């Protein structure tokens, strides 16, 4: 770390921000992530057409490469504008992503905290349970949950979150285990602080950095798994403008030469996943280069 000439004390956050700004790739990814989020928020303003209603007379039209100005990315097998569907798809992917993050954060952090802080039998039991969940391939676990609960966006969220809760719990647990032995926690306890105060004031701030990094990378994975479930046709209703489902609808037309129906949704998935991955990597480097996620 460079020595600051002004000798002014610097906060952890401003140092992290400086570090992040140095990483060009991370800055680019930040703007891409922002762009994707704005695309979701302003979907009704950006989209050209309604993403769900079929317009059969427009079906399978090529896009801008054939001079098509009203459907820049072409239309799908039901005549719906692919650009508009991709824009609305951002909402679905991000919605699933945010919900997965929320569920994972709440349950993962609580379980990890309980496990590490109370230790002994509870810890042993909880860690054995996470072992069990970690011995399934992630996609298989999600499929099993969908098989039990049935299809639907909410169930897909739950299925995907279940993949990450055990991992999140493990990360939080390992951080808490190292933090809770530190002298300042002991000092705080000697001063009469209760468990709750120690957890909220001393432990939680320490797990903030790894949690934020993990959740950002998780968003990338969640987008990928949502698309995978959509592609397999067991996550989401096929008429929903979900990227994976769009791909799967277009596969039969791919062999007939209508490549745009599959190419563009796939590019959008790859672009979003890449952006969130790069952004997460950049955050990790800025917040704590030694972090091991």
């Amino acid at each position, binding site marked *: 770390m460079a020595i600051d000439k002004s000798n002014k004390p610097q906060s952890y956050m401003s140092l992290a921000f400086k570090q992040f700004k140095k990483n060009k790739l991370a800055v680019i990814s930040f703007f891409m992530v922002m762009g994707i989020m704005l695309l979701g928020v302003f979907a009704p303003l950006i989209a050209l057409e309604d993403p769900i209603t079929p317009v059969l007379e427009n079906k399978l039209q090529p896009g801008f490469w054939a001079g098509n100005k009203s459907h820049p990315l072409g239309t799908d097998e039901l005549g719906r504008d692919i650009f508009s569907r991709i824009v609305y798809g951002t909402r679905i992917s991000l919605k699933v992503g945010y919900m997965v993050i929320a569920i994972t954060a709440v349950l993962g952090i609580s379980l990890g905290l309980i496990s590490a802080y109370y230790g002994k039998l509870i810890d042993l039991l909880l860690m*054995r*349970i996470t*072992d*069990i969940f970690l*011995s*399934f*391939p*992630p*996609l*298989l676990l999600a*499929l*099993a949950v*969908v*098989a*039990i*609960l*049935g299809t639907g966006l909410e169930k897909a969220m739950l299925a995907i979150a279940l993949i990450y809760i055990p991992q999140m719990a493990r990360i939080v647990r390992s951080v808490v285990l190292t933090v809770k032995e530190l002298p300042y926690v002991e000092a705080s306890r000697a001063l009469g602080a209760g468990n709750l105060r120690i957890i909220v004031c001393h432990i939680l701030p320490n797990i903030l950095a790894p949690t934020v990094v993990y959740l950002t990378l998780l968003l*990338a994975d969640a987008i*990928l798994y949502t*698309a*995978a479930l959509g*592609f*397999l046709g*067991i996550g989401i209703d096929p008429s929903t403008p979900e990227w*994976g489902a769009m*791909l*799967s609808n277009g*596969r039969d037309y*791919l*062999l007939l*030469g209508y*490549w745009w129906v*599959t*190419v563009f*949704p*796939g590019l959008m*998935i*790859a672009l979003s*996943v*890449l952006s969130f*991955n*790069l952004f997460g990597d950049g955050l990790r480097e800025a917040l704590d280069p030694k972090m091991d996620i």
Partner: protein
Amino acid sequence: MNIWKYILKRLLMVVPTLFGVSLLVFFIIHLIPGDPAQVMLYPKGTPEEIEALRHKLGLDKPLAIQYLDWIIGAVHLDLGTSVFSGEPVVTEIFRRFPATIELTLGALLIAVLVGIPLGVIAARKRNTLIDYSCITFSLLGVSIPVFWLGLMLIFIFAATLDWLPVSGRITMGLSLENITGFYLLDALLTGNFKALGDVSRHLILPSISLATIPLALIVRVTRSSMLDVLSQDYIRTAKAKGLPGQRIIFRHALKNALIPVITVIGIQVGSMMGGAILTEAVFSWPGIGTLIIDAIYNRDYPLIQGVVFIIALIMIIINLLVDIIYAYIDPRIRY
């Protein structure tokens, strides 16, 4: 602690995991909202049929007895019968398994044979254009959805260029005696070279799609572990002794650099089971992945349970082997 003690300890750790997995898989059928027998026969199914199925699956017995029955059956390789086809679940799984193993091995071979050299080259040419392209390549590899890549490969190499087949394991109508279920092996054993060529051609595109994620990770890990090793004292000593660069890389550095790579490969074999589900769906590959997807469509819960259980079992065994191999090749590791 000697290695045998470690292996024993590690084996004992598997027991509770195995118990938990079996419990979880057993409960799949009981967690369905509503009556499982009714759900399976939906939308048709008279009350008598539902009652008969319930009896056949043992759903009318107490839960503890059902679990005992299930686990005793599993130990005897009896995972019940498929509701959809009426065949034993184990038979269906074993029929499909060779296809998935063939695909996974093909992908693993590509990932290792391409990934390790790329990683070594990237490390040796650190901060050059070659290094940057390897990093970019590995970043893209983990971000591109497997199923989309598969579709693009089909579009380019099968539909447009017509070099390779679109889907399946073998061209319809081509005869191949089924001995092991591994088509490549069967073709070799029977000396059927026409089929050997055809089967290999079918294997190429699915293997490439499935290989991308492990390939990307192997490149990344090989590169960083190689950089780590190359900065060690003994490498400097070897250089100072005047050994040629090739020899240092292959005899001194690679051996140690590969230790973390082996762990990654082990972990990836497990995750590839998940990737195989998607790859098989894209290429209509008749393996375990398409089996479970069909089972989910058909609400064939005994079959779903069977496939989930067998795959989890394989994952546990692979993790166990990876830990043991790791302890063996790196004696510093003891937990």
